[in-house]
């Protein structure tokens, strides 16, 4: 009865930086690229705890969490976000990350539930292409 065909179903992505790390150039560039690709990006800013990020994702009903980290604490903080999602029974929310992450760590993080990781130098289109593939039903209007 109510209108549906004109409805837009953009994918919502909560992005933020976990831990003590003030390097936000990268996450802002990625946020901008995702906006330009038609995603709704909710940027939560610096120095977030895993609990804060997950809480924001739940309130915002986001399908994706994008984490950025350049401090070297990714092996602790990225899995902590995944654990918090488990605790809040929200494992349907997809987690991806970016930052200075050694190759050996990437496999380990993937095993722990971070779906994809992007390192410095990754073309922005690659990130967009990954999201498009992961969420073929949504995105731009």
């Amino acid at each position, binding site marked *: 009865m*109510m209108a*549906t065909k*004109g409805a837009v179903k953009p994918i919502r992505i909560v992005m933020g930086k976990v831990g003590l790390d003030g390097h936000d150039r990268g996450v802002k560039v990625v946020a901008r690229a995702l906006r330009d*690709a*038609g995603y709704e990006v909710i940027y939560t800013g610096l120095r*977030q705890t895993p609990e804060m990020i997950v*809480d924001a994702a*739940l*309130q915002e009903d986001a399908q994706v969490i994008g984490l950025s980290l350049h401090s070297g604490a990714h092996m602790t903080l990225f899995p902590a976000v995944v654990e918090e999602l488990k605790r809040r029974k929200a494992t349907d929310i997809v987690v991806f990350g970016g930052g200075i992450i050694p190759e050996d760590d990437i496999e380990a993080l993937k095993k722990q539930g971070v779906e994809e990781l992007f390192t410095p130098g990754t073309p922005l289109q690659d990130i967009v292409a990954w999201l498009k593939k992961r969420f073929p039903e949504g995105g731009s209007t």
Partner: protein
Amino acid sequence: MRALARAITLVERRDPAVRELQQALRDRVRPAYVVGFTGAPGTGKSTIVDGLISLLRKQERSVAVIATDPNSPFTGGAILGDRIRMQRHALDPKVFIRSMGARGHLGGLSLAAREAIRLLGAFGFDPVILETVGVGQSELEVAAVADTTVVVLTPNLGDGVQMIKAGILEIADIFVVNKSDLEGHKRVALELRGMLNLSPKAAWRPPIIATAAVRQEGIEELWAAIEAHRKHLETTGRASAQAEKRLKDETAEVVAEVARERARDALGEDSKLSQRLLQDGTPYEVADEILRNHIMNSE
């Protein structure tokens, strides 16, 4: 909490399931008081709202925020960044913050916002704060939805002429001159007062509140002004008149939404209609036919 978040998503998507949900919640709905904030980018709206949340939480009230930002007209994407200023309340279950893209849908923000406010009220959040960047017509939509509209100004936004042409004088119930630690804030208040003195006498005269939101200064005065305006609406009977008008407006919008959709369907499916439309060169006859055949005669 996730149920509420999901429901707001449905409202935003204009999903048909919303109708049933709203019916089911009808008896639970206790309308929340809605305070709207609008102003130019960077005037400190989110920071003021953050300060208000802190104040209201000290009074043990549950508070919800709907923070809107524009979507790109080209890709539909958006960066919704108002949350950043409010993240210290992130883990408080009595604070619900939701970012909303204005989405550029024709019904505008107001229909989705109204329904989201109703949902938040049903979940016990009161007041609901609605924040919108004033960069066009969205501030008018805030005024149409909010019980009290607060317009936020700062020093260095231009001289008094900007204030007349922006049309903000009419929509504000309360003015805030934020960043009162900066030079020039007294002049802004002075010019504003001058402008307001030229307005016709009204029962409610918008007060001007000075704040320095980053230092939490002036927030209590602001809340007192909001409460005073609320009382004014209630004692003068304007509250109930406003509620009635809004319900009518919303109903008209719902009708328009359904009609628009049917019209689009009809134009998309019926090639004869498109042909006639091109022949006529004007929309009126075809519109009449659509109204007759696709809107009035359907269930």
